[in-house]
């Protein structure tokens, strides 16, 4: 029996196993029950966590915008998201006529499920995780693809040409930004030698933020574009194409898209902290697993803070600027940095410190060359199609009466 302080989850699992076997359940049934309980716990906790995230984000956005954020409902407004949840649970589902029922109802479920699935492979401490899938990275990319499918189902099944248009644009954005994301994910895999997420965390003696800064930067930017956060939220912002693909959704179905977006932003921060900042690693994390969890939470919240900061301070991109940024800057940058990292890391494999330093320097050179070289080309010059019109000047005779009546 593992002592409870060393691995509380394993302790509970072993105790439950003993209890169920004592009741006479067959061993395979016991494993199934434990699996369901473990999966259900993670999924339920993730969905309940969104309530806290909504409060955190609203307070932080409020402070960035020089106001308080919610502070009426409970001390510091902590019951505000609960009030919001109660409201949205009791809103009517207005289903427009002519929708295709099954895809229409499936789309919000798929959107949330695709984000929840990522939580199954993230290691919270050295031994606490859903599964240590040995193809964790490919699994994460695959569940991102499910989310894209949900959006196209939503846009198409709503029987609304604006939803369809918004859905197409959203899918074009998501699909384009997935290219540099998957290429940049190859670099931690090269450095760690495995596709499993816990293996990547365990291989990070030195956090990969230092060995692969360009990959971290690209992963961060493309993940924010994947979640549809500002500054990339053109396709579903409230003032653009009448809110995009989720026009015809109301009540909790719309709430589910909202939940999916917030949870996705936090999941992306969690992934960044795991893959590039070392996850649960830190001093004494192997001996005291709870400390590993604390490290992970601190790192994730640092990244989430930066994500919210981006949302609150940057203006929205236009769609052609977004696509130019992706195809003309991020994708070539990701490919070139992959090539450079692969070539630089190989000769220096035995000396990890020298390898990290060489990778850092070469990544820096690649980044500077790219920003100087293609960064200028990405900003498009628009031709002037008309002469600027002169400003209106008041007629000389009209100035007299204005001066006499002005006080």
């Amino acid at each position, binding site marked *: 029996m593992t002592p409870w302080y060393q691995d509380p989850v394993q302790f509970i699992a072993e105790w439950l196993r003993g209890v169920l076997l004592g009741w006479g359940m067959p061993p395979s049934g016991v494993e199934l029950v434990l699996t369901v309980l*473990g999966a259900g716990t993670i999924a339920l906790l993730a969905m309940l966590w969104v309530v806290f995230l909504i409060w955190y984000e609203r307070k932080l956005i409020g402070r960035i915008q020089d106001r308080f954020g919610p502070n009426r409902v409970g001390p510091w407004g902590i019951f505000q998201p609960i009030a919001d949840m109660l409201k949205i649970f009791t809103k009517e589902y207005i289903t427009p006529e002519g929708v295709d029922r099954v895809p229409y109802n499936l789309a919000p479920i798929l959107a949330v499920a695709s984000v929840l699935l990522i939580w199954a492979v993230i290691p919270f401490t050295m031994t606490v995780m859903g599964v240590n899938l040995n193809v964790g990275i490919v699994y994460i990319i695959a569940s991102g693809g499910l989310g894209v499918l949900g959006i196209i189902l939503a846009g198409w099944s709503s029987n609304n040409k604006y939803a369809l248009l918004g859905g197409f644009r959203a899918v074009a954005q998501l699909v384009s930004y997935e290219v540099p994301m998957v290429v940049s994910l190859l670099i931690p895999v090269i450095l760690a*030698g495995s596709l499993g997420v816990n293996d990547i965390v365990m291989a990070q003696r030195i956090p990969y933020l230092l060995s692969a800064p360009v990959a971290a930067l690209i992963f961060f930017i493309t993940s924010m574009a994947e979640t549809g956060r500002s500054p990339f939220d053109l396709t579903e912002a409230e003032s653009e194409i009448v809110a995009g693909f989720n026009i*015809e959704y109301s009540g909790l179905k719309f709430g589910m898209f909202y939940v999916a977006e917030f949870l996705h932003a936090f999941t992306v921060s969690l992934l960044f902290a795991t893959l590039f900042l070392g996850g649960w690693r830190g001093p004494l994390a192997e001996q005291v697993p709870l400390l590993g969890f604390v490290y992970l939470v601190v790192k994730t919240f640092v990244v989430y803070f930066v994500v919210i900061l981006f949302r609150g301070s940057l203006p929205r991109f236009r769609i052609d600027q977004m696509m130019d940024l992706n195809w003309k800057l991020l994708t070539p940058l990701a490919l070139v940095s992959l090539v450079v990292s692969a070539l630089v890391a190989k000769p220096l494999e035995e000396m990890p410190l020298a390898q990290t330093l060489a990778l850092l320097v070469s990544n820096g050179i690649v980044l500077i060359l790219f920003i100087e070289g293609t960064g200028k080309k990405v900003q498009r010059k628009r031709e002037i199609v008309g002469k600027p019109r002169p400003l209106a000047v008041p007629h000389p005779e009209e100035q007299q009466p204005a001066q006499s009546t002005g006080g």
Partner: protein
Amino acid sequence: MLSEWLYVGVFFLIAMFLPAAAIFIAGILAPKKPNPIKSSTYECGIETVGPAWIQFKAQYYIYTLVFLVFDVEVVLLFPWAVAYHQLPLFAVVEGVIFILILLGGLLYAWRKRALEWL
């Protein structure tokens, strides 16, 4: 290995079931008063004009296609990346050649102005 995939399968079912249950509960709690005006399709407050299809731009197709090509490329590179520590230098160079050929394809697409949003 099989137990891991069983976990993933169970997790998928639970992840689909939880939002479905929430939506179902809200469906019970919420009022249901459909009327023809509420159920009509939204078109900025005016009456709908024409059936719900739009001119599909070929640019969407090109973006998805280029994504598919790079997705397959990355799938072929994943085993190369996993075996990186056990590979000699010339094998790494072979992978680099693979990436450079695809980078050439991307530059061709850029020059032919196929990647612009128009």
